[in-house]
């Protein structure tokens, strides 16, 4: 008889994270050396760029919020074994829906508009997710291809809006639509760059996701379907229905991220409104081993790297593409660690 499944995975998870971190720093150092950049100074600058002041920390948090929202959302789809690559499009459609609600003519009350906008973003993201889900369950299109296709559609749609019906009076540019009225900006504490509401929503989504996935019957059903969809039929569960539910929840979380990008970060609609946070969230979730408890920390790590590396071109005159290279290294290290873990689990 084998041992019962207890917490035997915990030390391994810690080991994975530790080795992942060492790999990330090692890789980055190597690339900095190749680029003939001072390694320690670069690391110091990334750190300073992310944490030196309250303003910087709050900027990190403003990245952390959409990242953690998307990561939490992705836990649902990963739980049923779906690869929701379409999350980028879901953020974009959430942002578009949020913007559309803010443009509703005839409503003067900004709070009311923001509330509409919030729910519109949820609807926008969830609907876009549902489309991917329906393509899979009804049309037999794999969710990766369906999601990717819908990402392109969402991108095309936002460009059309920015250069067409929603363009700034007189000019249409890549810098986006006209700035929102100040009273439609989500309020931030003085000196901070992150909206209070964003933090509150993100925190609640983390707690709710933990409750749903770890404590509720719904979470258990998702887990069962992810493990063995065939067997769930005997328990009266229809996998297709839960695929749709899961992907709609992910879409809704992504939609909220889109709403916050519009109302709290950019205060307008820009072509790259998703900022690639959807793809980044996929990696955060994978690196966390699909465990919610590790998500906030890993999301914070990626967010600080994201913000901190912006400093490099300014201070060290390094090419700005280097920050992209560093993030790429993180991604590769994550995949490598994951690959090793899978190999270990199989043996």
């Amino acid at each position, binding site marked *: 008889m084998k041992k019962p*499944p207890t917490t035997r995975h915990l030390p391994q998870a810690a080991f994975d994270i530790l080795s992942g971190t060492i790999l990330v720093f090692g890789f980055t150092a190597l690339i900095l050396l190749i680029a003939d950049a001072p390694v320690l100074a670069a690391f110091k600058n990334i750190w300073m760029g992310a944490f030196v002041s309250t303003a910087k920390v709050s900027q990190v948090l403003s990245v952390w919020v959409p990242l953690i929202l998307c990561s939490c959302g992705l836990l649902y789809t990963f739980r049923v074994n779906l690869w929701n690559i379409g999350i980028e499009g879901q953020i974009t459609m959430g942002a578009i829906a949020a913007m559309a609600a803010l443009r509703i003519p005839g409503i003067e009350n900004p709070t009311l508009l923001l509330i509409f906008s919030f729910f519109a973003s949820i609807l926008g993201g969830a609907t876009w997710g549902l489309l991917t889900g329906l393509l899979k369950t009804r049309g037999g299109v794999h969710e990766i291809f369906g999601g990717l296709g819908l990402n392109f559609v969402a991108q095309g749609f936002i460009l059309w809006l920015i250069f067409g019906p929603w363009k700034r009076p007189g000019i249409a540019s890549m810098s986006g639509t006209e700035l929102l009225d100040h009273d439609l900006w989500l309020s931030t504490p003085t000196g901070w760059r992150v909206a209070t509401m964003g933090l509150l929503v993100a925190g609640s989504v983390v707690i709710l996701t933990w409750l*749903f996935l770890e404590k509720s*019957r719904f979470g258990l059903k998702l887990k069962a379907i992810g*493990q063995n969809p065939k067997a769930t039929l005997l328990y*009266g569960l229809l996998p297709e229905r839960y695929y749709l539910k899961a992907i709609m929840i992910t879409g809704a979380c992504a939609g909220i991220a889109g709403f916050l990008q519009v109302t709290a970060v950019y205060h307008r609609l820009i072509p790259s409104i998703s900022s690639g946070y959807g793809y980044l969230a996929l990696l955060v979730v994978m690196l966390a081993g699909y465990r919610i408890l590790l998500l906030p920390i890993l999301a914070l790590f990626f967010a600080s790297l994201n913000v901190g590396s912006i400093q490099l071109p300014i201070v060290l005159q390094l090419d700005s593409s280097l920050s992209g290279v560093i993030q790429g290294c993180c991604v590769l290290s994550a995949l490598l660690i994951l690959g090793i873990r899978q190999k270990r689990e199989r043996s």
Partner: protein
Amino acid sequence: MDVEFQHISKNFGSVNALTDVSLTANSGTIHGLIGENGAGKSTLMKILTGYQSKSGGTIVINGREARLNSPKEAAVLGIGMLYQEPMDFTPLTVLENFSLGNPERNRKKLRLSLQALASRFGFHLAPDRAVELLTVGERQQIELLRLIHCKTRLLILDEPTTGISPAQKKTLFPALKHLAADGITILLVSHKLEEVATLCSEVTVLRHGSVTHHTNAPFHFPELLKAMFGSVPKQKDKEAQRETGAQILQMQNVEASSERLGLKQCTVKCAEGEIIGLAGLDGAGQSTFLRLAAGLTIPDRGSVILFGKELPKNIKACLQSQRQQTSFIPADRLEEALFADISLTDHFNLKEKQHSFLGIRNNNRVQTEKAITTFSIKGEPDYAAGDLSGGNQQRLLLALLDPESRLVLLENPTRGLDIRSGQWVWDYLRNKLSPQTTILFSSPELDEILHFSDRILVFHNGLIVLDRAVTDTSHAAIAAAMTGMTE
């Protein structure tokens, strides 16, 4: 090849799976290794094939201590295993499967070797046929030929007759004897005493991880049974015929295409309280029949009428109308009925018919503990289902079965179980469920069907070729019907 196990032990944490096991199998003999489920037979064979490491002791092969740290090392030494479930590649052809792991690359030569070996053993295998179209027995034949062609000198057979027909058994046994005569050492792992007696020249019995008995042919069955189980399990008399009531399941001209041959022109009625055994070669239509009644397969033509109502022609609706009164236990427990990484408690949670969205789980621990006691499951509520042995998985499935079910459908209910676990399963089905429950089950063991059912349906090529009360037929008549010979 002579193989000698010397004082082998194996621990999983604090559990001793094997303690001081010693046995010797000599070149050219067939050595039986028997024992109940969980006795340690599989663990011992996994050590020999390099899949698991031993905790203590030595394995000596041809007089020299052998290092068996990986399956590859075992294969290099000429150790090969024929698994209960064929370990082949179904999308490939017979010839392609045969050539796997073989240094020979010339297809022409491989084809000739395959044909020569097949004819030597009396197997009929078309080299270019896709393996997915073959029966388990035929797939086993390919695997056997492949192992022989790869110069296997020690052949381990794990329950080789589990999925095969009586006719295939008749071909397999002489082939094995033939191989032994050629000098190959064969280790036969089984809990079917008749087969062991037919094939083996000596037998070692394992119980709770230790050798309890070793003897040479001829064998004395009560002695072996006592060594296997500690006492001789009582051979029960043929179960009495049960009272039957109204019709509850009716199929009219049903055609369906899920298995290899599907199901054709199936018209049959089943009454309340009946116990019906479904016999037939692997893939002859029994599984499709059970899945149709369970609402997991939709007929292409015809109608399935359950409890007086025709089942809807869509899986979703079908499952909903089914859930209340029908239970189905498939043969592939981990593939189709359980979740390997989910705890026993959570299996009960999943089965609960409560529809709250945020129902907090873990409220079923007490129920799980009760089920563990009632069904003698060796495990704890927090164990993952995949960590249970086959017999305990079957007990778990019975524990999950709704006792109010009016129709219970079972696919090979004693698959992989030893005599005692098998008896326990049948005792539960016949005596603990209401006598009005209709039970339909398929089994490759004719004896099980003859012993436990009141009526038998024999399937051949997707057709029901025999439908009789068990008392009106015979072993021979059923075996003939299974192979398509009419009386």
